């Protein structure tokens, strides 16, 4: 019971922040609010027992991505220029998509349902045998590093490539900007 209340309180706070980000004109403040948003998302993952996901969300969402956003803002300016205009067509499209998504969730098994297919397929084997088959005390680690090792390798390559790309973009622009200043001096 209390867990559901916490869930809802955190979700409500996230909703308020999301709307606040939309209305915020100052881009720095918007970036900072995004970092609160991902802190709360991580807290929500903890409440739902997905501790490993929470770790990732905290370090990537609240840590690295905010720093990347600031790096991007350093190259541009801090205020949103164009005033947003209300457009009926896109608004209806968004509403429709949202409604379809919510309709889709009604077919999913209830949250925490022990008889849901996902809990009956391979999860019991991971939970019972991973200690003997792989070793680490954390089941998620065994799943990621051993049972789904190739999958994880692919993911890591993608993330690494993305990281290198972002660094290359941000780094090159800055060096170019620094050069004329040196010539003047």
């Amino acid at each position, binding site marked *: 019971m*209390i867990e559901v209340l916490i869930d809802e309180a955190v979700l409500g706070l996230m909703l308020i922040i999301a709307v606040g980000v939309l209305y915020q004109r100052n881009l720095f403040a918007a970036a900072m609010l995004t970092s609160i948003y991902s*802190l709360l998302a991580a807290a929500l993952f903890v409440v739902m027992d997905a501790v490993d996901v929470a770790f990732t969300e905290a370090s990537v969402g609240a840590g690295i991505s*905010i720093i990347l956003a600031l790096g991007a803002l350093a190259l541009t300016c801090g205020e949103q220029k164009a005033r947003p205009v209300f457009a009926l067509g896109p608004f209806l499209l968004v509403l429709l998509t949202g409604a379809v998504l919510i309709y889709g969730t009604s077919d999913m098994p209830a949250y925490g349902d022990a008889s849901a297919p996902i809990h009956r397929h391979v999860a019991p084997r991971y939970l019972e045998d991973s200690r003997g088959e792989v070793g680490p005390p954390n089941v998620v680690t065994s799943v990621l590093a051993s049972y789904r090792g190739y999958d994880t390798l692919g993911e890591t390559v993608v993330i690494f490539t993305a990281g290198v790309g972002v660094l290359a973009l941000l780094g090159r622009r800055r060096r170019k900007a620094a050069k004329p200043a040196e010539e003047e001096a």
Partner: protein
Amino acid sequence: MFAAAILAIIVTMLLILARALLGPTVWDCILAINSFGTLTVLLIAAHGFLMERPEFLDIALVYALINFIGIIAVLKFFEYGDLGPGKRARLDEDQG
């Protein structure tokens, strides 16, 4: 008891959030976010005790660290305009 703690934390989160959204200057916003990080740490700790599994405190610890690093990175950005080496290192470069 832990439910009361969580209630207090969530009420405070709401108050801080109001300041972050109202905050006339960007500094108010950063200040609110700094306090919000502390409260998230507390929320996770309190939730761990409520569910009788306080082992998850590791995450609270990581949050405390990330929050601090994030705030310092942000302030460094405001102080020097970018996230490169500090002012002193750049002054050395200029002289060299």
